[in-house]
């Protein structure tokens, strides 16, 4: 290397090179001799270099994408399991601690950007100054108002392009009144607009328009919601009879198959199923042909129609497919996915048709997408009844999908992983879950995990399954890896983890879990806290561990206290009181333990017998008769049957004064008195 480097030295530095190369003689062999020739033209020759090459192979020029360098850099960065996801601001206050927070933070970020865009677009005249070099179009205001005035087809086209439904319809009507013929193409694109949006303005998200139009839209949506609740349509937009689309369709002098097709698709989208099927008949009567998208819509219409037997529906769908084949319309992925989607409603009847459909798809060479498998899984695992025995088809599916990489082909592709993991969870099969997770981590498949809530669902199920079935060390590794960088656990997930720790007898990890629980916003989850306390208090442990548990219990107690402070009617649950007291005792925090006893009376909760015994032991250990008597007082206050036993124990084990004896006697007699009183009462 030194030889080459020095070879590049230009003229002046040659001498220096010669001196340097003198030292490298031993290593570089031939090179030094070349330098000693002292020629000023050496560098060039050195550049051409090496002795033996006869032929120069010119490599092909590589063209690099403009983001190639960045992509290469991005590929070197792995997920940091100790950090929050990149999308959040790296500030302790702004890092979310629960999934609810996470969602609201992301929404806040997005809505901020939307608000800024809205302002810019609403007041474009204030944002004309363009200082960016080069010009950045996406930061400039966008124009949504139609520029072309007057009544012309060009104006109509512009309004259609800007997706102004009302304006387009008005323009169309004006053109017709003026007697101008509107071309078929423009009419068709108007129909497209009307049918796609169901004769409503596109939703306000698209264009940030806070005009009266969006208010009308909201009213319309509310009306339609009531009508279409059963249909369950996304936006609640239903196809009104005699709406503009139908009217314009009727007005059109010339209609081609596109016109019919778009009408049918619009009707199906907005749940005017019968009309869609009727229009299809009309299309056939006019000897026109439907395209594959229309057929897909018709299949959906057939499957969704009410009041028909499932077999009849299936037969009709088959007939539609046969018509498709007869008319030489090529089915696409959506055709089969639509069929499978609709078959889900057929419950168990749909299983055989679904498999047949799937095989048909493979036979004609259409590659199934993740959505396909999702529908199949839903169909076969819809109503899980593990006692009856589950389908094995998930294993087929996972074998089929091994190692495959996917690209988006269907809007439902992001549903696959969560349904697959749900099935693994139901079947309690960890190996299968690993397979699913492996598929998720293949190539870019991780992007199909879907939005937040689906990702959380997937990982919650996965982690719960791990807690249930996997060895504790591996589970803890997954815990460190996934939480909190991939998902934030719900309290149930943490409870599952605690139970796993219990089974594996690793209770010493519990204080750490409590610390984490606080971080994830579960400080006030009673179920979780009780579980933690119960596990800690159940058995005796070596002293250091006991101390750690006592600290943890103290922490939990403080959460209860702060909860108390908030509520008007403070209420401690009974079990935690017991557990905390016992943990304090065992952990050596006797003073605080005695304070806890006071809380029993305050919140009117009954202490457990074992607890009282332990307190008695502690009193004995510290040789404090006063405390012992306190215990008996407490027991009698609650009229516990164990009071007698305790009193006797005090008398036996402790050295007490006469007064104390009498006091004890009173206490016990009180209880027996109350018994006798009740007897007397009954006697009367």
């Amino acid at each position, binding site marked *: 290397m030194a030889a080459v480097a020095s070879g590049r030295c230009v003229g002046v530095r040659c001498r220096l090179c010669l001196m340097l190369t003198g030292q490298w003689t031993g290593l570089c062999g031939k090179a030094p001799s070349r330098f000693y020739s002292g020629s000023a033209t050496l560098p060039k020759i050195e550049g051409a270099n090496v002795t033996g090459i006869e032929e120069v192979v010119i490599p092909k020029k590589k063209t690099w994408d403009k*983001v190639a*360098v*960045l*992509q290469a*850099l*991005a590929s070197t*960065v792995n*997920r940091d399991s100790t950090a929050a*996801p*990149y*999308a959040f601001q790296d500030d302790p206050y702004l890092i979310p601690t629960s999934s609810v927070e996470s969602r609201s933070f*992301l929404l806040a970020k997005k809505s901020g950007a939307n608000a800024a865009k809205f302002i810019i677009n609403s007041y474009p005249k204030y944002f004309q100054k363009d200082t960016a*070099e*080069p*010009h950045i179009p*996406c*930061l400039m205001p966008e124009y949504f108002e139609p520029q072309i005035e007057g009544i012309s087809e060009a104006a109509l086209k512009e309004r259609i392009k800007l997706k102004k439904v009302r304006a387009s319809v008005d323009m169309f009507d004006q053109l017709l009144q003026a007697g101008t013929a509107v071309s078929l193409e423009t009419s*068709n*694109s108007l129909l*497209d607009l009307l049918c*796609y949006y169901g004769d409503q303005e596109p939703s306000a998200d698209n264009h940030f328009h806070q005009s009266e139009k969006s208010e009308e839209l909201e009213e319309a949506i509310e009306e339609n919601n009531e009508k279409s609740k059963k249909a369950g349509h996304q936006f609640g937009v239903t196809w009104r009879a005699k709406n503009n689309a139908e009217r314009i369709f009727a007005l059109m002098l010339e209609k081609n198959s*596109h016109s019919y097709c778009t009408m049918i*698709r619009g009707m199906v989208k907005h749940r005017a199923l019968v009309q869609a099927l009727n229009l299809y008949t009309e299309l056939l009567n006019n000897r026109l042909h439907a395209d594959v*998208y229309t057929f897909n819509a018709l299949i959906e219409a057939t499957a969704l129609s009410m009041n028909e037997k499932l077999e009849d529906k299936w037969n009709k769908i088959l007939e539609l497919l*046969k018509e*498709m*084949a007869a008319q*030489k319309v*090529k*089915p696409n992925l959506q055709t089969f996915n639509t069929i499978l989607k609709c078959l889900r409603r057929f419950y*168990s009847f749909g*299983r055989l048709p679904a*498999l*047949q*459909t*799937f*095989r*048909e798809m493979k*036979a*004609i*060479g259409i590659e199934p997408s993740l959505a396909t498998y999702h529908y199949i899984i839903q169909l076969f695992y819809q109503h899980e009844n593990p006692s009856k*025995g*589950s389908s*094995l*088809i998930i*294993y*087929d*599916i996972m*074998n*089929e999908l091994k190692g495959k990489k996917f690209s*988006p*082909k*269907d*809007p439902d*592709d*992001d549903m696959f992983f969560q349904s697959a993991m749900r099935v693994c969870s139901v079947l309690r099969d960890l190996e299968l879950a690993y397979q699913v997770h492996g598929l998720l981590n293949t190539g*870019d498949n991780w*992007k*199909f*995990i879907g939005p937040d809530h689906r990702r959380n669902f997937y990982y919650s199920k996965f982690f719960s399954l791990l807690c249930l079935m996997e060895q504790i060390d591996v589970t803890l590794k997954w815990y460190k890896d996934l939480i909190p960088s991939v998902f934030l656990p719900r309290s149930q997930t943490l409870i599952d983890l605690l139970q796993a720790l219990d089974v594996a007898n690793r209770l010493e990890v519990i204080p750490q879990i409590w610390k984490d629980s606080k971080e994830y916003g579960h400080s006030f989850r009673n179920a979780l806290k009780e579980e933690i306390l119960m596990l800690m208090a159940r058995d005796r442990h070596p002293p250091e561990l006991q101390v750690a548990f006592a600290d943890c219990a103290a922490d939990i107690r403080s959460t209860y206290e702060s909860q108390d402070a908030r509520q008007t009617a403070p209420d401690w649950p009974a079990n935690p009181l017991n557990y905390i007291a016992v943990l304090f005792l065992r952990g050596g925090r006797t003073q605080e333990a005695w304070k806890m006893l006071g809380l029993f009376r305050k919140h009117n909760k009954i202490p457990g017998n074992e607890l009282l015994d332990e307190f008695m032991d502690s009193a004995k250990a510290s040789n404090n008769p006063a405390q012992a008597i306190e215990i008996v007082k407490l027991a009698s206050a609650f009229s516990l049957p164990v009071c007698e036993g305790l009193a006797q124990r005090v008398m036996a084990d402790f050295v007490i004064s006469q007064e104390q004896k009498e006091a004890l006697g009173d206490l016990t007699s009180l209880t027996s008195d109350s018994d006798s009183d009740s007897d007397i009462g009954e006697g009367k």
Partner: protein
Amino acid sequence: MFPRVSAIIPLRLLSPFPLCPGGSEAPAAAIVRLGAPHGTVRTKNEVHRYFGTNNVICNKKDEQSAPTRDISKETETQESVKENTKKDLLGIIKGMRVELSTAKVQTTRPPNRRQLKSIEATTGRLHKVPEDAPKKRTKSLSPELVAAAAAVADVLPFDKQMTKSELLRQLQQHEEVSKAQKDGERAKISVSNIISDMKIAKSSTARVSTRPVHQIQFDEGSNDYVGQKKTNDLKKSLRKNMLKGKRLNIFDLKAVTEEAPETETAPSLWDVEFAKQLAEVNEQPLQNGFEEMIQWTKEGKLWEFPINNEADQLGFLHMAAVEFLTARKSKD
């Protein structure tokens, strides 16, 4: 011997999966091949298996080879030998392909099944058969049989003597059995008995039903009724169920793949919106700073790296420089 066999009429056995129940009811048929495993090494056990002796599992080869031989033996005992057909036959064996008739199977099926059963029964005893027994037995076999057996033994890559003696013994047994049958005894053969006798290497056979109704559904319905204890074997055996089986048979691969002349139309609103929906499917939040920069570069907010001096992006700098100079000039 194999004369009948040479009358080539196709014979088809029931296709793959439920071999065992299917062979009975439906007109069983199979394209039978005495396929020569050229160069494969087989152990003694495999010899037995090849000749359909030991594990008469739902194994295609066994089933194929067993009926073949049985059929051939049966025809031999029933018919007289023909010289010319025998020569054809030896040629066929050399070519290792035999096609048999459907009809034959139907008429000869009961004996076949019985044969299977008896073969099963005698499995264990194969090795223990004393050596002189074969000699004794071959006496009652016709010379053509013996010659054919020798030819088969020659072609197969096993130990020739062993093979030959095995074959002959089988033939002999078959003779005895068929004689006994001729004497009027008709054993009641129920398919289910045979199936239950058959050793199946999988755990549960309770599910296997021989009725055609269940049989058809077996492919599809087996997914439903699996008990909690599923063994790995069972899983593997059902693995291919999803892909194999009936399809709708509505579309034809050729018709679908041929390129229809498509008119180029601009994408309609439906297509555009669908494409937008698809793009949203695998949208995920950005994972690191580089991805954010990639996003910005694509949107045009960030310069491309490495900076390309020839690109328009720096053209404005020239313009700005010009403006600066003119501004200076105007000041002056």
